[in-house]
């Protein structure tokens, strides 16, 4: 059995028809990891024992006729997700030996739905990065070209799903960290509305930005997982008390008459590759042919987004990492990686007496303006479509010596986090054999609209069927 050829939807059907057991499915997943992960380095911890046991339990339930939406499905969790009794490092050496005594809410919900956590995936330490190269445990490789980055910070999650080491993987998205690796690895990656999926138990990067989502091969799989993980959590005061629609029921509905905005600031950006622009234009043509109306819109404060982001996010990072003070967890602060240290320094500076007003407070005000840009845009259109990245995936090492150019990788994505709105990356085609992603951005809690359009587009194009050659 090759998981590369399976979606969650197909695997559920085959489990149901007893074409294979959960134990066989999990075994195949573990074997795939053993076979190819030495090349990819997607996993930091493989929970072989726990997963094997969980698969047996799942088979028993299946035999009893129990039906759960993810029963027996092997999923991977980004290493920022606390997993009870399974080592959780956040990709950082400083908590190399940390074993959480509790599960994150999202992990609980996945397990309750029957999912089997197969292991913990590699990532830029603490989520700080766009390429996966900031992992304290070494980078993950892009399955479509092993010399290139898979995108980050949910690098291992993307590579694991793209190569069929599991059927879905969780991620976190503070500035791009689900959508960018989804774009670089030809996957569907959802960054839901801030507060849609609870953050409890997920190691915080920047608390007012961190969004909990996941990566899958198809839109159906993605919507299915999202309706499981979403919803109010009494343990997270910032989780939204907004009813969760059955996202899968929105798939297949016509998109005729939907209004799609193309923000000019994104298409005119510096360094925008002509090939990428053509891919996105072709994609919008597809949607136009399905009856959507395409209009130009403007998000005038886009140019301030990166500066604003890189004041606010490091400020929150410096605070959230303060607990790793050398008293507990076994290592002292010298063990922090370069990027973590850099962000702690920037954030500490921005929050210091005498600088707070000029940096943090000002950036907070700019954030309000950027949020308003999106609100204004959504008063005219249903969704926005922008490229996910200005070029194809870059080479490993290409940007590591220039942190600023690395920061600018997220230029098409960070504004979405500043606004807190949902966005999804859709596979939109290939340039020189490398995946290109398209972002569909919606208004607050309009995930179902994103899924509806994404599904219509996927139905026409089926880019997900193009697998990496390993």
């Amino acid at each position, binding site marked *: 059995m090759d998981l590369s050829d399976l979606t969650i939807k197909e695997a559920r059907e085959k489990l149901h028809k007893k074409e294979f057991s959960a134990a066989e499915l999990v075994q195949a997943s573990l074997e795939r990891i053993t076979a190819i992960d030495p090349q990819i380095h997607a996993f930091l911890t493989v929970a072989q024992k726990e997963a094997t046991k969980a698969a047996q339990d799942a088979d028993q339930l299946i035999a009893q006729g129990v039906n759960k939406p993810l029963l027996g499905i092997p999923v991977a969790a980004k290493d920022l997700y606390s997993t009870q009794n399974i080592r959780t490092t956040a990709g950082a050496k400083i908590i190399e030996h940390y074993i959480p005594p509790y599960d994150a809410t999202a992990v609980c919900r996945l397990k309750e739905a029957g999912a089997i956590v197969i292991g913990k995936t590699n990532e830029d330490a603490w989520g700080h990065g766009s390429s996966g190269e900031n992992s304290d445990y070494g980078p993950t490789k892009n399955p479509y070209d092993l010399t290139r980055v898979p995108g980050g910070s949910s690098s291992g999650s993307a590579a694991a799903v793209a190569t069929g080491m599991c059927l879905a993987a969780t991620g976190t998205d503070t500035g791009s960290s689900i959508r960018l690796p989804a774009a670089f690895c030809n996957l569907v990656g959802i960054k839901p509305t801030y507060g849609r999926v609870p*953050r409890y138990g997920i190691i*915080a990067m920047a608390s007012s930005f961190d969004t909990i989502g996941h990566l899958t091969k198809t839109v159906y799989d993605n919507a299915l997982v999202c309706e499981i993980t979403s919803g109010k959590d009494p343990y997270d005061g910032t989780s939204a008390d907004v009813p969760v629609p059955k996202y899968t029921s929105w798939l297949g509905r016509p998109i005729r008459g939907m209004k799609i905005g193309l923000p000019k600031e994104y298409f005119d950006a510096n360094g925008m590759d002509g090939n990428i622009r053509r891919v996105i234009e072709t994609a919008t043509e597809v949607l136009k042919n399905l009856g959507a109306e395409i209009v130009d819109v403007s998000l005038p404060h886009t140019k301030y987004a990166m500066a604003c982001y890189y004041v606010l996010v490091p400020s*929150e990072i410096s605070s959230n990492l*303060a607990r790793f003070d050398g008293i507990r967890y076994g290592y002292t602060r010298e063990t922090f990686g370069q990027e973590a240290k850099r962000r702690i320094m920037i954030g500490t500076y921005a929050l210091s007496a005498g600088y707070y007003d000029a940096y943090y407070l000002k950036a907070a005000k700019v954030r309000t303006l950027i949020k308003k840009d999106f609100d204004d845009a959504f008063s005219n259109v249903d969704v926005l479509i922008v490229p996910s990245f200005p070029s194809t995936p870059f080479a490993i090492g290409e940007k590591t010596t220039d942190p600023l150019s690395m920061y600018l990788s997220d230029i098409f994505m960070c504004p979405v986090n500043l606004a807190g709105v949902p966005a999804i990356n859709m596979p939109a085609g290939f340039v020189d054999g490398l995946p290109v992603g398209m972002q569909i951005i919606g208004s607050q809690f309009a995930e179902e609209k994103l899924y509806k359009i994404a599904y219509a587009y996927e139905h026409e194009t089926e880019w997900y069927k193009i697998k990496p050659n390993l």
Partner: protein
Amino acid sequence: MVQNKTKSMNQELTTYEPIIGIEIHVELATASKMFCGCPADQFGKEPNTQLCPICLGLPGALPVPNKKAVEWTILLGLALGCTVNEESKFDRKHYFYPDLPKGYQISQYDQPLAINGSLELKTQNSKLKTIRIHRVHLEEDTGKLMHATVDGQRVSLVDFNRSGVPLVEIVTEPDFRSVEEVDVFAKKLQQIVRYLGISGADMEKGSMRIEPSVSIRKSQIPNPKSQTISKSKIPNKNKLPAYRVEIKNINSFKFARNAITYEIERQTELLERGEMPTQQTRGFMESKGVTIAQREKEEAHDYRYFPEPDIPPMRFAQSQISNFKSQIGELPDTKRTRFMQEYGLSEYDAGLLVESRKRSDYFEEAVKATLDTGNQAIKLYQISPKAIANWIINKKVDVACVTPAQLLDQIVQATATTSVSDEDLEKIINQVLAENPKAVEDYKNGREQALLYLLGNVRKKLSGTMDMSIVRNGLLARLR
């Protein structure tokens, strides 16, 4: 007489006036901690037994505020005459210390729950004084460090049971001018907190802690006889000194008094020597009764406050705030005035009775019982509120052990105890019968009320207290 003006210009009086403000921390007696479900009652518990990922600050754990703690803080704010902020929020206060597991304390910075209150004091010389309350805010307590020897090694251990216990901070303006004022204020605050039932406010258990800030204002007051001083030369009486000294580690009212007294003397001596005290934090050493320097101004923390992103801001509607106001109940000052008016008690007695809510409630229950009772003896003796008050105060009645009904019985019995000899009683009875032949006649004609009239006359003549049933029997025997 010709005055030497030059000389009088130089005759200035130097005065040293203490300027004191205080911060008081009160641990709230909520069932659970500030941001998690662990029990908040941590005193005397086995170390590190009341913990969870949240109060341990484990990676990924998030705080969810305790609604009761927020409400109680607002109640206290209102009881101290504060304005409740319609919009309030939590902030992170960053500093490094091993007992602070997140590296920051969740506190409140620029939008505390309540601001701008005041509390009126009466000092021993009966002078009224108003102390302004700057703010009342809510935060979480830290863990506790313990220094011990384990396996022959001197080690520092951390007990996180206290970590995350709700803590209210009350900050006054620098309005105190004496140790006594601070003492009266602190005790009065403790009383209010206890009245509200939001904390035991026990200094010894650390559920109430005082941190005074002391400085000395040195003033040159010009000789009042001098006529030529221009107005501009009169020093600004309201100007605060350019420094202040904060004193930590105080865990009793007595130590607070001692620490402030010591600090006033220390700073005055410095000023008299012409030196300027420096802004610093000092710790009180109870064994020696002195304060010692801990941290200079230059070493002051930059707490890097910023809004706590894990907790949405709080909003309170005016209707909610009014609702909180109605929950406060009668506070000691109001109750004392009422007791004086309603029961004719002296200010002193009323003050003693309202010391605790329990005691004042007990008093009123006993008063009520004298009216509602079916007990003839109690009716007969017409036990007054004043008598009940005296009894409670003088006999130091343990309100936990004696019910108000039992108390009344005690008073009746004691009142009834005879202090008049049989001969004296007989004499008085004979005298009364002789003085009231009409009543004797009426009684003999079957008018029972005449007996009561005679009884009353005997009681008036009794110098001591006496069981009235004995009097009654005596009277009846003579009337037969």
